[in-house]
């Protein structure tokens, strides 16, 4: 079946959202073309509100007029719809799929919250506690996910877990620069550190990264806001 002829794909997004990039990378893995619509989240379009009335958020993928919301749902939809085209996002074997889904949840459930807390808290006990919690979870990731000879968590190409962790590959170094302290060093996390470089250089990722200088300015402003309103 020739998909290309009968498909219209739109992605509603925002230039700084890591969840939007996750979807862009997934579409890139499948080699899919799409129309990108930039949203002003302070002035959401009628289309966005119509496509995602429940959460009113980006990303939203619209496939032949039908909307799919929530980045993890969208990524699995992309893998389902274009099965057999481009790379695999989820493995074939059910147990391996379960492991991929398990680790993909670990990122938003366990890892991201202390990292965000570390970034949005002024220096002191509370920030140090957040950093320690983040390091503890990073250790779990480093140890349990024995990359061995694999380039990525998904094997020899970017998969679901890589996509889930992905934005942290550029966000963590940015946070480190802004705060002036390290979270991931090569000595402490050799596998993760090496993975970060490989991920940013991977074919589906390297041409689909946010504008870094603008993002850094944005993150600086965010940290200032949180410190002021603590």
């Amino acid at each position, binding site marked *: 079946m020739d998909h290309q002829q009968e498909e219209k794909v739109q992605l509603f997004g925002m230039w700084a959202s890591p969840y939007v990039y996750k979807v862009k990378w997934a579409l890139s893995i499948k080699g899919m073309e799409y129309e990108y619509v930039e949203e002003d989240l302070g002035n959401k379009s009628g289309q966005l509100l119509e496509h995602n009335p429940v959460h009113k958020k980006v990303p939203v993928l619209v496939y032949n007029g039908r909307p*799919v919301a*929530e980045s993890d749902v969208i990524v*699995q*939809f992309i893998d389902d719809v274009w099965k057999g085209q481009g790379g695999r996002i989820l493995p074939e074997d*059910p*147990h391996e799929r*379960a492991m991929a889904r398990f680790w993909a949840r*670990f990122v938003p459930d366990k890892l991201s919250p202390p990292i965000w807390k570390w970034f949005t808290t002024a220096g002191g006990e509370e920030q140090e506690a957040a950093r320690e919690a983040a390091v503890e979870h990073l250790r779990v990731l480093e140890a*349990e996910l024995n990359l061995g000879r694999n380039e990525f968590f998904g094997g020899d190409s970017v998969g679901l877990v890589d996509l889930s962790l992905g934005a942290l590959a550029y966000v963590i170094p940015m946070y480190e620069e802004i705060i002036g302290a390290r979270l991931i060093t090569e000595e402490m996390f050799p596998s993760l550190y090496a993975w970060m470089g490989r991920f940013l250089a991977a074919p589906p990722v390297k041409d689909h990264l946010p504008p870094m200088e603008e993002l850094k300015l944005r993150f600086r402003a965010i940290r200032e806001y949180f410190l002021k309103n603590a």
Partner: protein
Amino acid sequence: MAEGGEEVRLIGSWASPYVVRVQIALRLKGISYEFVEEDLKNKSELLLKSNPVHKKVPVLIHNGKPVCESSVIVQYIDEAFAGTGPALLPADPYERAVARFWAAFIEDTLLKASSQASSGKTEEEKTEGKEKVAAAIVTLEGGLRECSKGKPFFGGESAGYVDVILGGLLGWVRAIDTMQGVKTFDPSTTPLLAAWAERFGQLEQVEAAMPDGKRLIEYAYARAMQAAAAAASTN
């Protein structure tokens, strides 16, 4: 033993709604399994070895390989036992995405709000949580309408993934309704959900998986008293 000598064990604890989800899924698919009751205050070697990351129940062990996290387990059951019993997720990719969206809503919006309502740090936070729960249930009514398209379940003619994800919570919903004299799924504001709760709760596979109502209420009261005692002793 399930089909063809497969070994399926479920490590769980009788009161956990997340464990109930997995039991419902296994029963809907007609998969036999061994239930291993875990004492969460004294975790077994088996649990710690099978779920070293979270050390929580449920854990499904299929032919010696562990799977953790209830929603991951339910999807695993659907995929690993694809030839057995009804499919829990639809075949169509878009319908599947809709089901996953609503399952995520139940986890990330409804249950998060519920957690804030019961464990919020201040009375203000708790009240806000309760309001969020009420709003989420109204939204979920719309979700049921979208998924069921006039049929009895989120999964359509037969119970599916979203029914299981929400249905695991029914035991606790009933307990809370009894204890607080409320109706979480109010038939006047959320008629579809109220009817669904009755209907789903009466499926034999679900009844067999649910914790005993009286025992759950006793357990809930005991926990509340413990929490109150702990709070009083730190004042």
